[in-house]
């Protein structure tokens, strides 16, 4: 009887309520259906939302906005953003398992940066005359790819547990990667007439000829998702559910037109040296351009290479306290990124059989403290979930780090 109760309650509270970029997590509620999903999350543990919002929604970043983050920033901070949207469908005729097919567009950006890097980027070098600004340890990693997914979920193992597996073909669209090594720095002398750039860095680009074209085929790869969920009897509440999900386990092979740069030299620039006033030519005054500077400061070569995509690990333990209330604790980590270990708790309450809400509290990841809310409307034919793991970014953008939102709409078969 007790196990039946646990099973029934699990039907209500199974699956994570938050945004974790996995279709399997929502299967319990949406069942066999076709769904569209979109989610984004971004944050930094050094830059306030008010500044990051400008990169999402556009606008002018004023001095007070820059100053606010500058005063709270760690010596080394992280910044990250994930955005994806997809269309997917669970289908099948068997009672015990269903098939999954989906298409998803991923945009992933993450960065580790020094406070000096932030200051140079947002204030320039003029306020820092006669100072050496440390750039070592800064990374920027931006990747965009599309995914075609095939999988299945076995949803009646031992009556209650679930196992899901999927494999995906990945189409790489665009990659930009920079990593500066220890010692990399920029020095500006006391009157701004000399720059010394210690250029210890590696940089990689995917084929730049089609980087803004969503149909560009700059790389190809594969990935897999694994999902496991099982209820169990616990000391607390009426029962518990353990969920382990790992998705985006894979890599992309960027093609032969990809470019890699590396530099390990110190460049001193104190202006173009003019030896003859009679020979002031265009070449002196008007041929400064970005490409020539990069070519002069680094050795570039074209070759293919592989890059792991950030893999998402999620472990959730949910305790069903009452028929209407459940409490989850969880852990999330993104491999191959600078995502900090993220611990969280979800408090879910079921208002009616169709409407459920959840409060999310977490710390870590790309940002610091996260507070979120989510609502689910679930009927026989429709499933709708909207919410955010990081609502603080919308309410107090000048005082908080990180924000995100997700939406999922499914039509059940």
């Amino acid at each position: 009887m007790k196990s039946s109760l646990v099973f029934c309650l699990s039907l209500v509270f199974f699956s994570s309520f938050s945004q974790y970029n996995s279709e399997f997590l929502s299967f319990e509620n949406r069942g066999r259906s076709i769904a569209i999903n979109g989610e984004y999350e971004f944050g930094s543990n050094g830059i306030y939302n008010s500044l990051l919002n400008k990169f999402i929604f556009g606008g002018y970043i004023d001095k007070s906005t820059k100053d606010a983050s500058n005063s709270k920033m760690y010596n080394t901070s992280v910044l990250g953003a994930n955005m994806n949207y997809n269309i997917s469908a669970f289908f099948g005729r068997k009672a015990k398992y269903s098939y999954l097919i989906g298409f998803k567009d991923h945009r992933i950006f993450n960065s580790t940066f020094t406070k000096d890097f932030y200051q140079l980027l947002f204030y320039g070098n003029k306020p820092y005359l006669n100072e050496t600004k440390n750039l070592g340890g800064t990374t920027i990693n931006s990747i965009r790819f599309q995914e075609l997914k095939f999988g299945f979920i076995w949803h009646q193992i031992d009556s209650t547990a679930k196992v899901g597996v999927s494999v995906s073909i990945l189409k790489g669209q665009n990659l930009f990667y920079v990593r500066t090594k220890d010692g990399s720095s920029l020095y500006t002398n006391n009157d701004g007439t000399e720059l010394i750039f210690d250029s210890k860095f590696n940089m990689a680009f995917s084929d730049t000829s089609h980087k803004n074209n969503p149909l560009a085929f700059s790389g190809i790869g594969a990935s897999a998702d694994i999902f496991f969920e099982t209820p169990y009897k616990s000391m607390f509440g009426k029962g518990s559910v353990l969920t382990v999900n790992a998705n985006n386990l894979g890599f992309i092979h960027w093609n032969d037109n990809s470019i890699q740069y590396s530099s390990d030299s110190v460049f001193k620039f104190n202006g173009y040296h003019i030896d003859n006033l009679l020979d002031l030519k265009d070449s002196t005054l008007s041929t400064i351009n970005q490409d020539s500077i990069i070519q002069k400061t680094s050795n570039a070569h074209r070759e293919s290479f592989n890059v792991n995509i950030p893999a998402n690990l999620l472990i959730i333990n949910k305790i069903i306290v009452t028929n209407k209330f459940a409490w989850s604790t969880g852990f999330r980590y993104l491999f191959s990124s600078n995502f900090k270990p993220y611990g969280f708790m979800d408090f879910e309450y079921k208002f009616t059989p169709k409407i459920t809400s959840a409060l999310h509290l977490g710390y870590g990841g790309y940002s610091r403290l996260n507070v979120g809310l989510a609502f689910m409307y679930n009927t026989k034919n429709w499933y709708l979930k909207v919410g955010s793991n990081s609502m603080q970014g919308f309410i107090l953008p000048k005082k908080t780090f990180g924000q995100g939102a997700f939406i999922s709409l499914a039509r059940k078969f």
Partner: protein
Amino acid sequence: MRIFVKNSLLLIIIMSFFSCKKETSWDIDAAIPIARSHLNISNFFGDTIFKEDAAGLVHLSFSKEILNLTIDSLVKLPDTTVNIGYTALFNASLNPGDLIYSNAGMPSNQEIAFDVANGVQLNKAIVRSGFLKIEYFNTYAQPLNFVYDINSAKLWGNIFHVNQTIGGGSLTSPATFTKYYSLKDYDINLTGISMNKVNTLVQTYTIKTDLSGVSDILTAGHGLSIKLSFVDIIPEYVQGYFGQQDLSFGPDSSYFGLLNNFSTQNFKLTQSHINFSIINEFGIEMSSTISNVKSIKVNPYTAVTLNTGSLLQSMNINRAGKTNVPSNPVFPYIKQILLNNTNTNLNPFLENIPNYLSYTVKAKLNPLGNISAGNDFAYYGHGLKVIADVDIPLALSANYFGLTNYANVDFVNLKQLNNVNSCELVLQVKNNYPFSVKIQGYLLDDYKNIIDSLFLINENSVKPAITNTANVVLSSVDSKIISTIINSKLENLKKCKQIKFVTFMYLPNQPTPIKIMGDSYLDLILSANVNYSAKVK
């Protein structure tokens, strides 16, 4: 299906939301080094014209070629045409190989005399390039053989020889063609058969029926006509008596553009020298006069005549000698005449800052007649040159010097300029010269109109170095010129196609001369403080 369409539409709306993001921007303050230069006086005018003497005083020193006479100024070999051949006076029956005509034993028919102008009497010539052009006309029905020798033209011991077969023809349709035979490198004796003539070479030729023909009748009025032409002859060497020619060159002028970008007021030199070098590589005596030497300034026009007295009058120029080294066959005679500020008015002549030097040169060849007994000579590439070596020690006085330089620019494609909110150009100067400097950069449009200037008036001065009363530099002085580029100036910079830099150097304690020393310098460092709008989309 309807659900799928609806969902897809929603997906597109979401995608559109993110793709329509507005631009993000923020302002940064960048300190950017732009250019630097360590300038000494050479950098203002060009490296090659300044030399430092043992005392460290800089001299403006350069050479200018005023006159360069070559071999063709003395000896002109005209294109010469001679008609030879044979026309039958009566019918004759001929077999293949029969001799028709030969000029052997007919001395009057063996010599060709060239009509060389100006009374030049050549006895020898070596041809650098040129041709013997032979035009053949055969009216005999059978092929003829023409053998031609220039007995007085030899190459490696072999005389010039032509052996040519001309096909058969007729009066109405003669066999005709033209061939060019190179005379390159032939050594030609021009003394005729008796070896006592001039401008005369010796030829022999025979005309036979060719062995490839058949027996036939050579009817009266038929035969072979030959037209010989010596064309495009350029001598490598000529020898003889070149006559008592009177040569005159000019009035002519030589461009003197070294100081075109230079202006001054009350410019006074303390010393100056011009050494006229007359280099004679002809094997001939001459008497030469250089006159009417003027320094001409174009704008505003002023001309100063150099009063040289008799220094450049009736100068006796001796003949050059032969070295017998083929690669360098001439030992020139060099005559030098030194003009300075004491034996001429050279200082005011040069203080005019000329754009052109005008002159007239006259020369009389062999003023004493044929004293070389026909051994005047001239080689190709060797002639008579007049070179002026100018030397001006830069110990001078003036109210100021002005320099004008132009720099072509095109900022249209420099998109980053659109993101500059404001800019401060900072020019740091360390001046080791005794003069103060005022600098201005004028922005010129496509039509050379001034549309703006870089620096504010009265904020564009560089202080002079610290000097003693004799204007000797004791220590350098630092100055800073700041130009604030506001929006309107930025817009004008974008339109600008050329920047005209005008620099004035004001000399202290005038008229006390200053000395420009080799270790004097002007250090310039140009940097910019830019308020820049960084933008991403």
